[in-house]
């Protein structure tokens, strides 16, 4: 496969599909979209076949093309274990989501499929880009189609949700742009004013690893910017509030991709850029990030306990689960990092499936209020059986994939600090609690009057719908029993990332600065609480004007 630009192919195959759809009649949109996505998927599988896991964390199938020579910006793609898995996850979820949108999406199907395929391009690109500038471009490209998908095909309050999503993400990513440029220039300056390689991931990484890397102040600031961008995407507490809104309003497939892939962009960014470029800063920030992660894990779970809406519940569970990812990354432990990556994949599969299943019931009831469900086990046994499977998978039932990742993270954390581990492990109970609560309310008891009222509209899960979740279920089992498959692939990347960050030593930050920062945060919170009566929480009307 060498020579043939497979990565470019994978990245832009969906775009081809999008263009085709643009020029074909609307009736073709569905098949063409699915076809394009499937082709991409197959291509990515070929990539897996061709990928040699043993060869350490080096990038494979790299493609290099001078793009903006003035700044040494290149079109450079490459894949290592980490990106490989995420790309495959993306391509898989993409065709599944497209398939899942066939029935729900009836209006403006052309635009929908086009946006979706472009979205796929962006996501794949983010994972494959080896040039910070290119990375940023793909990163932003992801934004637009998602904005449209939520905003056009979303629920009642979609505009508020989508604008919140975009603005929130944009704030982070634009600051990240500044950081990217600053880093590039710092390199150029150190490189005697030569721009070549100033945006090249591998060059920068090497530079960061050697000769003390970037200047501490730059590291602190730049990492801060990157952190914000990634933390918002992950999303880490307290930057998570866009997620529930976005999930609730987004169409099913949108939620699937949102939870399945977009959230992973953050984790990926941390591992790929945060740790490798600014090891010292990473070491400096790590404690704070770990604390935030722990908060997210517990907080998300507790809040999920009282969610009245299926999607909101799953959304908050995502906050909790993604907390494990950041936790696993920033304890700088092999097990933790392995676990974090596994957790990303598994969360993608499981939560993706959960959203699909929520979509299934929503299709029939046009309602997601848990209180109105009940007694589905009798009416739609197959659906409930599948639901149950993923509910327990999400609750981290051993033997299914969710468990391995979580446990590895906990293990690493325990080695890092038993108390932190104890805190995080506590979520085993909460996680089971909200999941079972939801499941019981949906499945057991007599068929609720609301559902009964739907009469024969309330059919059991259809073959197509099963087809959408079945692959995910299969993977959940396989990865649960043979996580080795994944672990071997990511091994190299993990080792490299840890080696990179290992070179870092915490930077001494003036306690005054810290104090001032904390003071500011406290002030904001207080201010907010004081002004509660002034701006009610439902700024939705105002913002969506």
């Amino acid at each position, binding site marked *: 496969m060498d020579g043939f630009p497979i990565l470019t192919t994978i990245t832009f195959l969906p775009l081809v599909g999008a263009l085709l759809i643009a020029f074909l009649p609307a009736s073709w949109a569905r098949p063409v979209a699915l076809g394009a996505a499937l082709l991409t998927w197959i291509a990515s599988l070929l990539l897996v076949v061709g990928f040699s896991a043993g060869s350490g964390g080096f990038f494979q199938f790299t493609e290099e093309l001078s*793009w903006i020579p003035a700044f040494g910006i290149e079109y450079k793609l490459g894949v290592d274990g980490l990106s490989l898995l995420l790309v495959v996850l993306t391509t898989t979820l993409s065709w599944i989501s497209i398939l899942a949108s066939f029935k729900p999406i009836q209006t403006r199907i052309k635009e929908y499929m086009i946006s979706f395929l472009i979205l796929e391009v962006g996501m794949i690109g983010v994972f494959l880009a080896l040039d910070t500038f290119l990375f*940023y*471009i793909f990163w932003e490209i992801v934004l637009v189609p998602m904005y449209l998908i939520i905003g056009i095909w979303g629920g009642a309050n979609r505009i508020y949700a989508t604008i919140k999503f*975009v*603005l929130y993400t944009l704030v982070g990513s*634009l600051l990240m742009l500044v950081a990217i440029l600053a880093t590039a220039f710092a390199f150029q300056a150190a490189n005697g004013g030569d721009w070549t390689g100033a945006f090249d991931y591998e060059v920068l990484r090497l530079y960061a690893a050697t000769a003390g890397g970037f200047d501490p102040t730059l590291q602190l600031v730049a990492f801060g910017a990157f952190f914000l961008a990634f933390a918002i995407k992950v999303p880490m507490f307290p930057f998570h509030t866009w997620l529930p809104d976005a999930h609730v309003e987004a169409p099913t497939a949108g939620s699937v991709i949102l939870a399945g892939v977009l959230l992973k962009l953050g984790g990926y960014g941390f591992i790929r850029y945060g740790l490798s470029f600014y090891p010292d800063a990473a070491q400096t920030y790590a404690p704070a990030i770990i604390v935030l992660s722990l908060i997210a894990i517990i907080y998300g779970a507790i809040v999920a306990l009282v969610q009245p809406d299926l999607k909101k519940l799953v959304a908050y569970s995502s906050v909790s689960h993604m907390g494990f990812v950041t936790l696993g990354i920033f304890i700088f432990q092999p097990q933790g990092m392995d676990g974090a990556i596994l957790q990303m994949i598994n969360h993608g599969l499981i939560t993706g499936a959960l959203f699909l299943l929520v979509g299934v019931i929503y299709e029939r009831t046009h309602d997601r209020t848990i209180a109105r469900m009940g007694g589905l086990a009798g009416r739609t046994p197959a659906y409930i059986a599948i639901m149950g499977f993923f509910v327990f998978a999400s609750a981290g039932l051993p033997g299914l994939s969710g468990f391995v990742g979580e446990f590895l993270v906990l293990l690493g954390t325990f080695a890092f600090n038993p108390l932190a581990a104890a805190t995080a492990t506590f979520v085993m109970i909460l996680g089971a609690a909200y999941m079972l609560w939801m499941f019981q309310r949906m499945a057991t008891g007599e068929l609720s009057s609301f559902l009964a009222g739907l009469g024969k509209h309330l059919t059991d899960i259809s073959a197509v719908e099963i087809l959408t979740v079945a692959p995910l279920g299969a993977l959940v089992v396989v990865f649960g029993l043979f996580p080795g498959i994944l672990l071997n692939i990511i091994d190299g990347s993990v080792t490299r990332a840890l080696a990179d960050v290992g070179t870092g030593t915490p930077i001494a930050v003036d306690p005054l600065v810290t104090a001032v920062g904390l003071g500011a945060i406290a002030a904001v919170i207080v201010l907010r609480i004081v002004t509660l009566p002034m701006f009610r929480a439902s700024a939705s009307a105002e913002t969506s004007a």
Partner: protein
Amino acid sequence: MTFQDLVTIAPFVVAIFVAAGVIAADIVAPGRNRPVLVIALGGLAIVGLLTIVTGSTAATAFGGAYRVDDLTTFLDIVFIGIAAMTLLFAPDYLESRRLPLAEFAAVLLFAMTGAMLLAASADLLVLFIGLELMVLPGYLLAGYHKSDGYSTEGAIKYFLLGSFSSAIFLFGLAFVWGLTGTTRVSEVAAQLTALTATGGLSAGLALGLAFLTTGVAFKIAAVPFHYWTPDAYQGSPTPVTGYLSVGPKVGAFALILRLFVEALGPLRADWLPIVVVLAVLTMTLGNLVALTQTNVKRMLAYSSIAHTGYMLVGLAAFAAGRLEGLEGLLYYGAAYSVMNLGAFGVVAALQKRAGVTSNLDTFAGLGRREPALGILMTLFLLSLTGIPPTAGFFAKAYVILAAVQASQDGATVLGFLAVVAVLNAAAAAFYYLRVVVYMFMREPASDDPALNHGRLLWAGLLITTILTVVFGLIPGPLLEIVGNAARAIG
């Protein structure tokens, strides 16, 4: 005046003749658009060619009053392009309002010649006259829809404040002239270097500088001298608004380049802080107020103010010692012109049906009624927001890069400026995307049938679209050009 001089200023002269030719054509065949357009566009093509040909070699004419260098060429091309685009967008709009094209074209071309002169001037007096030649027709264009109260209101506001600021500017000019004793830009610079070398900034010089800054800040619509912009933009006929939002703006920046960067270059340490403050105010206020606008033209007016701010960031970066700042400024100018013209082109297209306002509701469901326009508008708006891969994104990235560089050189305030810039960009996303919301996420307010737009309009939109994408995806060539242009004076 030698023959050589004539050759050097050939583009300028020809431009004037084109303008005159348009009038002549109208006299010969009154009220017919085709000949006007043929002459105007054809003429512009010739002027463009001449510019490129003559611009290939740097030269001066009239004893150094007129100067051709890479900067001149670049700016002239931009101005010619702007004029051409405006001419492409205007006919439909004017026709539906029974407004003659000939005078419009003529006045527009005169304005363009003014801008060209501005870009080429190496003499303060020429600079001033070029400026006037650029803005006076602007007043007229603003009021071109003379039967419309808004148009004339905008015009008179624009005129009164404009001439007020002209007077201020001129006053400052007089002082600088009095102190340096010359009108030749190069000599002024030399003199100032000498003056500041000894006594530093003298009171009179400060006075002149203050008046000049004020006058220029007004022309580029920098806060707090921006008041005229929203009213003038909103009132003017939409194609004119499109022109005003880019032509005079880029022209004013040309003025800045020639006057502040070249003539007052030695004083850059003194005007840098002012520029920084202006940049922050301009970006922030422009964006904040734009958030609350419900009229797209007015919203774009405020957004244009904000964009001035971003360009000022580039200027500041230059003043802080980074030539990249200048390049960024120029790149931004070009990118901004393209995308903003495109956006206004769409607005103008929508207003083809007379009486259609530019309110947000007009855009409701546009994506349904006229998908093509909707998608193009989205592209332009994304570009204005600064989302890759569009011209707007790369331009922003460029000025920010310059600012970051300057800050790492030691001028920390520039780093702050960069952060303010990106935060503003984020805020700006809200109002730009709101238009997208209306176009794609709202149902059409009226079920008017889709309009059929003229071929010219589509051509204009096509060009702007292509350029918007190209400047975003393949910035290489343009980077080369602006690089040379910047080096010509930096």
